[in-house]
């Protein structure tokens, strides 16, 4: 539902591996308040 989909927000997430750092776009529930 629309309400349900609003709970999820797109966010840039930083990843670090032994080879280096990069970012990916993920979805996290919109409770980061």
């Amino acid at each position, binding site marked *: 539902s629309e309400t349900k989909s609003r709970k999820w927000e797109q966010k840039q997430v930083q990843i670090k591996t032994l080879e280096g750092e990069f970012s*990916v776009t993920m979805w996290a*529930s919109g409770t980061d308040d």
Partner: protein
Amino acid sequence: LKRNRAEIPNTYEWKNQLSEPGFIAAPVSCFKHAPIYECWDNITVGMKVEVENTDCDNFSESFPDSFWVATVLKIAGYKALLRYEGFGQNGSKDFWLNLCCNTVHPVGWCATRGKPLIPPKTIQDKYKDWKEFLVKRLTGARTLPSNFSTKIEDSLISRFRCGMNLEVVDKNRISRMKVARIEKIVGKRLHVKYYQAEQDDNGFWCHEDSPLIHPCGWSERVGHCISAHRSYMERCISGNLHEDDATEEYFITPRTIHYPPDIEFREGMKLEAVDPLNLSSICVATVMKVLKEGYIMIRIDSYDADESGADWFCYHSSSPCIFPAGFCDTNSIPLTPPKGYDPSEFDWETYLRENNLETVPLALFNREVPAHGFVVGMRLEAADLMDPRLVCVGTVSRVVGRLLKVHFDGWEEEYDQWLDCESPDVYPVGWCELVGQKLEGPRVT
């Protein structure tokens, strides 16, 4: 932090049962009083998390703790079956973990702490470029909110604190209240000790949302019997409570019901009620006294008459544990009749007519059935209300509207408990582990 506590000796672990075919745990979303209930809808299968990588060399000086990304394959209560990314269809290293434990993090947590993700040893040579693989696997996937850990910690905080005083049902005489002091709080369950108790009395355990506890001054206000020191009664009457005396705002207030005019609970009326001293049984009961604010004292009619009234018990009129006459019959639940009556022959109509009795009108009962989500066969953790310091593994064995019958695994049916679907005495699988409470396993015969 509570979640960093030491392991509890002899606590039961669900892990051997979790993967058994047909194992279903009641979801966290069934338990309004459970930690992080509000955001559990956002915990889904397919979600990615960062977890400790246990498939690595035991010791690395540069990276004493190693993490990798895993996918949630299955959820059972607070537990999740996880598979490290890169294992594809290979389930050989799948593992169950409590999603609320302190080694599960949102993707991105390691980078913010400068920790590199290290692939498990089994698959470390599978890809030359882990970056490309991770970008592909993680882009567009779901993860936990970055404040997940704070949310868990906040949801574990009790409204109460140790040292507070409150009024609690006297476990040795259920018709009266006693003043008690909170000694310990585990997972919002309060361990209270009665004032003026015997030295070897271990007190009582109940959840902070339990209907068995009330604010200081409650008994005096509603007209309930209380055994307390004179100085306590004086401060209740004068309203000069101590700073440690728990007041109204700490408690769940039963909902106000607006009854139709001229319909009310009256002394002598008959009804059916869960026996507070034997929760596997629903019995014919009598309204013995009507207190203020919607509370009633009832007596279970299957016991010997006790002139002292020691066997009376207080229910709120909105309680989901009292029912109109005929409820058990309608729902094919065995009804315990009044003392002296044969259960196979008891008939409400004849009983009422022959004894010139009346029943509590149907309109006075709480008939609301929430969409609770419990179904028969679901596994959970439940307080043994006959010895409430214990939390045991159990199974929902019947669902009748909002009423649940909880069976304690390995025990006879006579130990079952009828509980409301919103009872604060049932918890999701993994709750004990999360809050640091010992879990009693199934009885092994």
